[in-house]
């Protein structure tokens, strides 16, 4: 409330008056376009590649000019890394909600109060669908199949309301391209759009189509667990949790009703299910009872958190130091097995984010290869299989820019690994029963443990 602000304000007032008078002239033209700015969920979608080109746009109502993306580009410039672009942005007339998947931005334009999670979930679903249809979600693939993608988008959303997002249902309406069908269509002028109502759309089990037939009936379940952990300098666990998922591939004739039971279901802290799972049975008996969708799907996600002790499969002994004087430092890392339940650790990989002033690394690895990327300052040490008899070690010297001070920030290690035939939480499937159909299916369960965000501080 000081007088200083006064002048600035009154001059702003004057300029806005002149803007008003200009505005009235254009009013008659904008009448219709104003009408379009109506309430709905997702108004438009833009697909934007890594370098900031819009390569596909879809509007569910009126066309919104691309200039709306400028706000986004501005923020993207500032964020430097695309991962750091905040997902919700406010512009004078719209909200922009975006996700970053496969080096692409899926940017949606919103005009009213909409649950942002709703939009983000939907955008991920779009990306999932593209991935599912074409094997990957990339600019090239989308451009190669642009009309199918466009048809899919139209089928997935109507007036901003999600319409069909189940892959099973979509595939009945718009068939995914296969080499054979493309050839046949080209020759016969056939269509890749189904002309009957997808059977799943309306039944109480929208995820499964009717009349499924297989000659080989099989049901496979992959229990995949990712360890998210932070270990401190001394190797003590700061926090650790397990994100688990059961991926299913079910190819069964008819309407099978499956029951999957665990040896130790009480391990699970929190679960989220595919809509097919009967929640009541889980609540009362801790079994998964469901009529499965046809094909691949995620049956459940679960979470085992720090309340239970999480086993850490490897130990890391590391020392990375920079000398106070002289442009150099030393690095010495050794990795060994810890709690592996007798299984072999494979695909072991260590990623080290070096301080910005590091210009080169002269290291020797007793096992595997290492690379140093000068641009990103990342050392990647690809070890492969962990041999408990001969522990892998990486050591050597680091050079920093001459004249640069000792780096302020500590580098951090990220570990990647895989352990086959082990769910590190100890979760075990005890049996799978099938009801409702007569035949005997082939059943299988596989376990896999991976490192998720597994980080060692130095």
């Amino acid at each position, binding site marked *: 409330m000081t007088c200083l602000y006064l002048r600035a304000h009154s001059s702003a007032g004057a300029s806005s008056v002149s803007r008003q008078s200009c505005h009235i002239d254009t009013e008659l033209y904008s009448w219709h376009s104003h009408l379009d700015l109506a309430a709905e969920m997702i108004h438009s979608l833009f697909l934007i590649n890594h370098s900031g080109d819009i390569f596909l746009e879809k509007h569910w109502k009126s066309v919104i000019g691309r200039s709306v993306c400028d706000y986004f580009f501005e923020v993207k410039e500032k964020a430097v890394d695309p991962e750091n672009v905040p*997902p919700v942005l406010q512009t004078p007339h719209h909200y922009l909600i975006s996700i970053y998947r496969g080096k692409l931005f899926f940017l949606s334009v919103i005009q009213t109060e909409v649950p942002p999670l709703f939009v983000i979930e939907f955008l991920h679903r779009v990306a999932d669908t593209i991935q599912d249809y074409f094997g990957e979600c990339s600019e090239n693939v989308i451009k190669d199949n642009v009309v199918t993608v466009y048809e899919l988008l139209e089928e997935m959303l109507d007036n901003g309301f999600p319409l069909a997002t189940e892959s099973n249902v979509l595939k009945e309406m718009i068939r995914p391209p296969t080499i054979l069908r493309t050839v046949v269509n080209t020759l016969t002028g056939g269509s890749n759009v189904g002309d009957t109502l997808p059977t799943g759309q309306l039944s109480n089990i929208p995820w499964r189509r009717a009349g499924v037939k297989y000659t080989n009936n099989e049901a496979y379940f992959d229990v995949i667990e990712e360890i998210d952990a932070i270990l401190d300098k001394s190797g003590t666990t700061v926090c650790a949790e397990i994100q688990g998922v059961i991926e299913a591939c079910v190819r069964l004739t008819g309407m099978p009703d499956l029951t999957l039971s665990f040896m130790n279901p009480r391990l699970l802290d929190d679960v989220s299910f595919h809509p097919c799972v009967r929640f009541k049975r889980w609540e009362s008996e801790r079994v998964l009872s469901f009529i499965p969708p046809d094909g691949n799907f995620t049956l459940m996600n679960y979470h085992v958190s720090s309340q239970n002790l999480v086993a850490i499969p490897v130990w890391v002994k590391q020392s990375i130091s920079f000398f106070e004087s002289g442009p150099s430092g030393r690095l010495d890392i050794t990795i060994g097995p810890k709690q592996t339940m007798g299984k072999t650790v494979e695909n072991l990989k260590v990623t080290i984010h070096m301080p910005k002033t590091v210009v080169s690394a002269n290291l020797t690895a007793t096992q595997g290869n290492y690379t140093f990327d000068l641009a990103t300052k990342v050392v990647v040490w690809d070890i492969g299989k962990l041999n408990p008899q001969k522990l892998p070690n990486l050591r050597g010297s680091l050079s920093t820019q001459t004249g640069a001070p000792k780096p302020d920030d500590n580098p951090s290690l990220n570990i990647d690994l895989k352990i086959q035939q082990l769910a590190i939480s100890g979760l075990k499937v005890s049996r799978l029963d099938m009801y409702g159909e007569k035949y005997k299916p082939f059943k299988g369960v596989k376990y896999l443990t991976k490192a998720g965000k597994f980080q060692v501080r130095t």
Partner: protein
Amino acid sequence: MTDSKYFTTTKKGEIFELKAELNSDKKEKKKEAVKKVIASMTVGKDVSALFPDVVNCMQTDNLELKKLVYLYLMNYAKSQPDMAIMAVNTFVKDCEDPNPLIRALAVRTMGCIRVDKITEYLCEPLRKCLKDEDPYVRKTAAVCVAKLHDINAQLVEDQGFLDTLKDLISDSNPMVVANAVAALSEIAESHPNSNLLDLNPQTINKLLTALNECTEWGQIFILDCLANYTPRDDRESQSICERVTPRLSHANSAVVLSAVKVLMKFMEMLPKDLDYYGTLLKKLAPPLVTLLSAEPELQYVALRNINLIVQRRPEILKHEMKVFFVKYNDPIYVKLEKLDIMIRLASQANIAQVLAELKEYATEVDVDFVRKAVRAIGRCAIKVEQSAERCVSTLLDLIQTKVNYVVQEAIVVIKDIFRKYPNKYESVIATLCENLDSLDEPEARAAMIWIVGEYAERIDNADELLESFLEGFHDESTQVQLQLLTAIVKLFLKKPTETQELVQQVLSLATQDSDNPDLRDRGYIYWRLLSTDPVAAKEVVLAEKPLISEETDLIEPTLLEELICHIGTLASVYHKPPSAFVEGSRGVQHKRLPGSAGSGESVDSPDPASAAGVTEAPPAVIPSQGDLLGDLLNLDLTPPTATGPPPAPSSGMQLGAMDLLGGGLDSLMGDESEPLGGDIGGSAAMGAGFGAAPAAMPASFNAPVSGGLDDLFDLGGSVGMPMGAYSPPKTVWLPAMKAKGLEISGTFARRAGVIQMEMTLTNKAMSVMTDFAIQFNRNSFGLAPAGPLQVLTPLSPNQSIEVSLPLSTVGPVMKMEPLTNLQVAVKNNIDVFYFSCQYPISMLFVEDGKMERQVFLATWKDIPNDNESQFQIKDCHLNSDAASNKLQGSNVFTIAKRTVEGQDMLYQSTKLTNGIWVLAELRVQAGNPNYTVSLKCRAPEVSQCVFQSYEAMLKN
């Protein structure tokens, strides 16, 4: 072969070639051509010129081709309305097709073609589809009603579609129910006052049944709808909670968060001693934790909401601290949010862990994150008293790293720690002083100076330190200058013998060589204090400061309650009430948490009524502050006796004093604490030491008071009889030239609480005009005609007629530019004419816009200063009472008035029809025709309009 081939033809003759292909006899060629057209469309090329050729392909048995043509139609129909009519017949025919897929597709597409003429044809097919035997068609038709309503709301109401839609809530198919709910919710959003979604136990039961069976998206619509329901008692509340809880295990995070919203809201009604209450609390934690393992974008939204949840119910996540630990490769926006929540969850039990983490973060790469981590350590110290010592030593460790920005942040937070725990950690001052030279950010410099001034008696070379800053005084930022001034005065009061020269130097720099009014004001005040009564000066400047607390960063309780009702929405992401988004039309309804139904157990759940926006100022503070400032102003202007240079000319003095009072309003309004971690001089005009001083005013310092701040709440009968509301003179809105002879001039008025649009219609044509009707476009405040345009007799040539059209404010809302712009369509027997006009915003000032004084105070304080705008009204010759009267006539209410040195300050409140409050301070000085008006509003967009109205109301 892939679709990328469609992108290759960018030559000039492309459109021409496509045209030929579209008209080809070969089906396959046609389809390929349409695909090419669609491909061009997707990348934003304009292919609208091909409209007739594409529409010609519509009559086909090939479903894919049909779909493609529909896609094209939706995109371009609006630019070619006449051509689009060509498609109508096919649509109507397709709506009768035996294949439900085609019926649904046709009705869906028709709804997307936003052309009036098509809309008319849509009604009959839509009516049939709403009652179709196939649920797929019904659910598609339900959405279509929402689309149609958006194009022509009146039509939907007239045709009775809303009732059909309501019936669909009882449909046997859950997907149909979900879509009907979604459509009704969307329609209700543009009619905030309508009772479309009439929720009663029966409908709730139906919704809960459908909830279990419909798709994940439908579940979100239903849950969001449920959240608007207020259960009758705790038993109903519990039964709804029980049926919603399973949704917490859904794979879709939006379903989970919507369920959390319902549970958080209904939980308020459950008695706390109920077993179920505890069970529910336990059930909420795991799904919230799981949300944090999702994709980073989902995590971000989840974290923003968890931030609200932990403020409302910290017990839910109190054991889950570790999941908020930051990982190296989290995106920065996730890192910052996690940090915030870590501090909120910090307690004595987990503080060691938290501090170890924060220290770790302080050595990360990202500067923003590191800074926030250092600040977080300070906040922990203030929040958890037992940890303060550990925090200080952690900060000292960080200072030893000598990383420049870490040191600066550390010093800023240590200053806060000193304010929270005075006389406890002074031993570290020596270490701080070592880093004096490396400080280059104003905030850190100011913090350091404050510390030196505050503890001057324990720092041997305090004078040297401060003197070193004084050298470049004029290059410092205001913040640093103000601190330096205060610090040197403190130093002088503590060590008067050695520092006389220094204090004279700083006073002269501040008062004589500076253009900054705040600085000059403060300088003069000190100067006069010191020169008249050094003992009093000591009492004021070195007074004990009130302690700061950690609560300053909490969201205000009423806002928090409202935000809890909006979990999962954009409001919850921005932590702003939905009314702050003018564009969102829901602003009118302020949602409140239901009160607990239990008997006496609701001790810690605030009663909504008593918590309604009032943060009462501690009574002990305000009067003494009033006394103090009164005293300051009544100091006589005797020549100086002891120290210092001669006082400034008295006129300058008065000006300074008045400004001080203006600036001081902020500190008067609020509680005693300064923003934590914010700048030291809370308000620009009042320094830390000074602003805080009044808390401990000795009684001996009381002198006669005249026109002090205690007048602020004295209405003193200054409000006289209200006069009529201001109405601007009529202006020509629609010249006859533009409207085939019809001229419309008009104005707006507010009479007895009803907004009237007063128009003069003049027929300047040669023939009689009849059949007048009027419609408004959506506008910022939902203005809509409350009745038809009453022109009963035909208007003969050269005749004029006066019409008064009552307006309601429940129409559809859309933000206009300028805000008060209104687009009007007037129809007569000749044609439809469009014009736009602007209404004075004062039409929207409602009669019950008088705010309680306490609420005013709290609100003024609560609205951030960024939302304040100041305007000047020139050449106005009313005195303050007349102005107040005049404004009251237009529903601008004066709540308080105070007079300072001949300047009257009126504090006024106004409420708009959509519930937005505007607070104003109007300064009127006798003999000065220029008024100053400062406006504060949560929706600052309206300030400019309100100011224009002020000017118009005062000057007419």
